[in-house]
């Protein structure tokens, strides 16, 4: 039953994968045929593949998986198969939106064709799909290896949830895999817990004499149930998800079902939540969304790009865990954010505009024309020009201690840091400006969408599509804004007046112009937006801006060669 449900899930997965490269086509056909043998009622519930723009070829399923998935239930009884058909239909009725997470959604809805890797952000496996996959993997391993689910979980966790890897290693050397995972050797695994025995002997934890109820893992190290419970509860309280047998130098891990048997419900729920989270921490196919308070996990294997989107539509970079930052590179982003964060630029400003008091080193900004400075802090009087003692100046308004070389050197230094500051500020202001614009546009969009919905209620004859385009166009606008924002970080890192920079500025200008036009139009009154000609203009501009965005990203990816 479980198995067939799984194979139907596999079939569903295959159907959501329309454009496999030719090398994989054959094997996938073959697989499909084999699954058709077991599941029959799938002909009419094909998942719409429109939503699925493209998909990277999945690595062929592990030979051991295929090999050890025998036809055991092929020969199973008829009634079960009828049941399976039912369950299959049930599964295929999962809402499409849900299924699409499994698939590979191009963010641009397939509207703009682009081969650019950086251009597309991909939304991948969401929470539900992750749990489902976790469950499926566990059950599959449990069945293939003939172990309990909780033992399968331990095995999977020992190899970072790489099912294929686990199975092939297991076939090679089961003993070794089991030892590494902290589970008893395969023959004994199903007897994970000896049934509680009441005994008179002393428990080696509390050192109390019996009669006590004793329990043990399959290693046979038994402790009284009170001690087990206290031990497990404390470990769970500490957030430990790999609890080992209390016996010194025994490395057997406590499976989930033991925690359920011996601890209260609350503790067990806590524990299983930790274990569930551990999947994301340990698995190489999942990451946590880094947005504050998001807490969603996102699968990464379906993505060809390093920018992915969680179910809350937060897009981020898998590598540096900051906002999706195309066209800027991760290292540029890290450096930029650090630059914005720390005081290095403040320091530039200070050195361009201030001097330190020669006595107490307080930073002083000149607030008048007179060069006779008096430090507010230490009352030291000095000359702004030569920083010498004011008393040594005989003529009040001209500094006769003028050392041209010294002054020139310091002026040069000042000019340099002033220029660097100006350059930085140029990019920083534009960067911040696009960020601010995006936030405002999001607000405007929300307002517009609300108003549109109201209008639609008043005039129900209006189709949803007539008003929906505003939201979609703003979505596109925001994407352009984010890219524009990061173009300034990228440009800051580019060498001035190089040919690459020229080309880049050209692409940037193009995107900026189209973005601004779209933005202006979208800011107009809702009534205006409802006009048919305005709608088509919005749509056209949104497409043009998106085009510019992709052109820029592609240009950067190709190395900015004209």
């Amino acid at each position, binding site marked *: 039953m479980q198995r067939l449900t799984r194979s139907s899930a596999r079939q569903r997965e295959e159907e959501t994968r329309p454009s496999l490269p030719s090398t994989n086509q054959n094997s996938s056909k073959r697989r499909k045929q084999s699954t058709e043998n077991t599941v029959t009622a799938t002909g009419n519930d094909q998942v719409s593949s429109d939503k699925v723009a493209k998909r990277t070829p999945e690595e062929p399923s592990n030979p051991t998986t295929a090999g050890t998935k025998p036809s055991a239930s092929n020969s199973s009884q008829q009634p079960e198969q009828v049941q399976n058909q039912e369950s299959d239909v049930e599964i295929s009725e999962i809402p499409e939106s849900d299924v699409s997470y499994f698939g590979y959604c191009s963010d641009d809805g397939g509207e703009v064709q682009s081969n650019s890797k950086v251009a597309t952000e991909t939304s991948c496996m969401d929470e539900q799909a992750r749990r489902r996959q976790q469950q499926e993997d566990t059950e599959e391993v449990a069945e293939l290896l003939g172990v309990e689910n909780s033992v399968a979980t331990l095995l999977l966790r020992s190899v970072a949830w790489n099912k294929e890897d686990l199975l092939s290693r297991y076939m090679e050397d089961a003993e070794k895999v089991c030892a590494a995972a902290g589970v008893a050797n395969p023959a004994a695994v199903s007897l994970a817990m000896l049934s509680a025995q009441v005994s008179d002997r002393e428990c*080696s*934890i*509390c*050192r*109390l004499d019996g009669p006590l109820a004793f329990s043990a893992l399959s290693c046979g*190290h038994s*402790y009284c149930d009170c*001690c087990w419970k*206290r*031990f497990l*509860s*404390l470990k769970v309280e500490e957030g430990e998800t790999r609890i080992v*047998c*209390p*016996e*010194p*130098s*025994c490395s057997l891990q406590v499976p989930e079902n033991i925690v359920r048997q011996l601890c209260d419900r609350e503790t067990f729920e806590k524990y299983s939540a930790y274990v569930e989270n551990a999947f994301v921490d340990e698995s190489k196919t999942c990451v946590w969304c880094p947005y504050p308070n998001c807490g969603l996990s996102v699968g990464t294997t379906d993505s060809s790009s390093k920018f992915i989107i969680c179910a809350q539509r937060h897009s981020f970079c898998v590598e540096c865990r900051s906002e999706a930052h195309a066209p800027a590179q991760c290292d540029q982003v890290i450096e930029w954010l650090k630059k914005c964060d720390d005081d290095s630029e403040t320091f530039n400003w200070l050195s361009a505009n201030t001097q330190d008091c020669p006595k107490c080193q307080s930073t002083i900004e000149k607030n008048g024309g007179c060069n006779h400075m008096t430090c507010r802090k230490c009352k030291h009087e000095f000359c702004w020009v030569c920083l010498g003692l004011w008393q040594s100046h005989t003529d009040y308004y001209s500094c006769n201690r003028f050392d041209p070389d010294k002054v020139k050197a310091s002026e040069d230094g000042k000019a340099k840091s002033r220029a660097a500051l100006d350059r930085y500020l140029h990019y920083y202001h534009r960067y911040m400006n696009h960020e601010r614009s995006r936030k405002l546009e999001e607000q405007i969009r929300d307002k517009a969408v609300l108003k549109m919905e109201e209008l639609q209620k008043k005039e129900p004859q209006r189709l949803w599509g007539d008003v929906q385009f505003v939201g979609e166009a703003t979505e596109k606008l925001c994407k352009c804004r984010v890219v524009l924002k990061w173009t300034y970080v990228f440009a800051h890192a580019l060498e001035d007046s190089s040919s690459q920079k020229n080309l880049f500025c050209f692409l940037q200008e193009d995107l900026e112009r189209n973005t601004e036009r779209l933005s202006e139009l979208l800011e107009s009154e809702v009534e205006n937006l409802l006009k048919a000609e305005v709608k088509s203009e919005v749509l056209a501009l949104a497409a043009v801006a998106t085009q510019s965005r992709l052109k820029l990203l592609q240009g950067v990816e190709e190395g900015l060669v004209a």
Partner: protein
Amino acid sequence: MAGIARSRLTQERKNWRKDHPYSFVAKPETRDDGSSDILVWQCIIPGKKGGIWEGGFYPVVLKFSEEYPEKPPQANFPQHFFHPNVYPSGKICLSILNEEKGWRPSLSVKQILQGIQDLLDNPNNGDPAQEKAYHLLLNSKAQYELTVKKEGLLPKDSWYTT
């Protein structure tokens, strides 16, 4: 959850009195008013026969928390005890005393003390806790052994009477 530290330690004490390894001492600290503190144990570990620590008697204080035996006790030699795996404060760095590593609730006081005795002869230079003994052991074994004899090997009486 009510701790079992005290009852377990009472039991440990009982078992120790019944049977303990030769020349080891382990007993709860006696307070000034004559009562005893079951959570602090004064112990003495003899150097192992045949090793460079043979002939010496080394005092160790075991401090248990209310969370014992789920959590390990802290074991201390006197301050500045000469051994690569003993911090200048005297704290002993040993895997079975580390909750994250080898500590298990079923380890007895006897096993702990024997573990420490073992550590004396088998220092773990991969996990140094003090500079002096670490460098000597690394660079000059002879010098190291000499220092053990000189600094470590003190007559039983010079620590405290049992």
